[in-house]
């Protein structure tokens, strides 16, 4: 099992993993990751959206659009100020592709091999013995 590239950003692996569970949109991904890591991992929009764009271009994920009707966008078109409002915003959902699942499997195996290798250094002398 080849070891992972140590310079590899784990963000892609994390995003692949959460999308493997279910389809999500960008903001839901950030919240899912934060919830799973009890807030330790925060994906900023500046990191997440370019990454999603890259992963989509690589065919790792596919996307679809949902039109979300605003709760307060009630038919208020009698108000000239809101007459031109769009009736819904668009939300982009992402799901893992077959290629993405294969990439996730490869990365997960490499990650586990790496973790096992590091663990082999730690089990020889329990950390608490250092005291």
């Amino acid at each position, binding site marked *: 099992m080849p070891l992972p590239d140590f310079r590899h950003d784990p963000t892609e692996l994390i995003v692949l993993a959460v999308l493997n569970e279910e389809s999500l949109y960008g903001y839901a991904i950030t919240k899912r990751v934060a919830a799973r890591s009890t807030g330790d991992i925060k994906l900023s*929009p500046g990191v997440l*959206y370019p990454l999603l764009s890259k992963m989509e271009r690589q065919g790792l994920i596919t996307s679809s659009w949902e039109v979300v009707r605003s709760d307060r966008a009630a038919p208020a078109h009698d108000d000239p100020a809101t007459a031109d409002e769009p*009736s819904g915003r668009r939300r982009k959902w992402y799901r893992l592709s*077959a*290629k993405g699942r294969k990439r996730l499997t490869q990365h997960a195996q490499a990650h586990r091999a790496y973790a096992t290798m590091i663990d082999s250094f730690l089990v020889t002398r329990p950390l608490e013995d250092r005291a």
Partner: protein
Amino acid sequence: MTTQAPSSRPVLPTADSAPASALATASEPLAIEPSPRLRLSTQYDRPMPTIGIGTCEDPTCSPRTIDSFLSDLHRHLRWHREPFGAVRDELESHVYDRARDLMLAGMSESAAVDQAIEELGDARSLAADYRRSRTIPARRFLMNASMFLLSGAVLSLSILAVSSHPGVPQSCPPTEPDSTGTSLLLRPVLSDDGQGKMFLRYSLDPAPITQLLTTQADLGEDRRVARLDIEPTQLLLSRALGAAQPDFSAQANEVKTSTFSPPSPFPADVADKRITLSIKESRLEDAIGMIAAAAGLRPIIHRESINEIGTDTDTTFSISLTDQPIDAAVRALALSASTSPHQTLTARSDGTIIEFASVAFFDQRETSLVSYDLSNINAVGSEMVQQLLQTFVEPDSWKDNGGTSAWLSFAGSKMFVQAPKRHHAHIQWFLQELQSN
């Protein structure tokens, strides 16, 4: 407008994995949420934060809005060929969702929107990250370029060796790659079935589309190197305009080839129709209507499936065709409207109507189970057949490759394949080639 959910409706965050606010944001109507006019009119009631390029520390400077941030982002992205609408809509939606969560936590609307925009970061940096996500890393580019040059050098030497072979007619044309780089094959890879034929895969990859051709080169007894002249630009144009593909067999004095040509998706009477049309700056729906009218067909648009491939419905198209088959118009429109090589639209017709939808839509509708008799190619072996098919025929679609739309199984001399119609045409070509072996 009603909510349009994707065909396989996404599952929303569950209670055990997302905070309560996430559930509320995604699914429940709430009294607390940003104004629906947020993106057009949001103003700030306190000194401006750092947004977009530069810092506005002077309280007297004009307030910034989501629109102004996105305008800065668009300017820094400098995308001229790709629609900005998708990025704009996604970031707007993010700000909206984030602001709503912050308001649920007790913030005022203006402060929530303020923070949501600020969290997007600097527009210049974000634009740089987007640009970086769409460029090939220098290392990979150098590797690809090196491999291409190396392949060209090896091929040139091989061709020179073949030219000096006594069995080659002196009338053979010069076989060195021309200096303009417009000839020769790209990435000759994959399997040799051990019986004198080698399958070659050509990936011509000028953005924004990937053209994948598969052909077969008969290497003959002396295993001469195949020489196939391909001019990528001409090839793309000819495919886009529906013209005949380059005839590889024209190089018959050097190598025998057979090229798979996908069958027309239209019945003969529709495929033979020639149309002339000029579409200028028209939206997708209007462009489809014009193509259908020019062919004398009634248009049907499966909007949900087209939305799923992310085509920006506000994008306009300009297509000019003179006396071309209708397939050429569909291809030209698909090339312009596709968001990626794997997410494109296509059309079908029964002679009275013409339907436009995503390839995935038609794949799902046209999937069928077919049995193939392999008794004539027993010598090849089922493993080789499986390897060839799952390597060349829509590789990502096969269950064995992690896909979800194509299945294959063997029973004695029979092979059963459940897959979309377009797979079967390609499979039949492979089996015929193996039989002719």
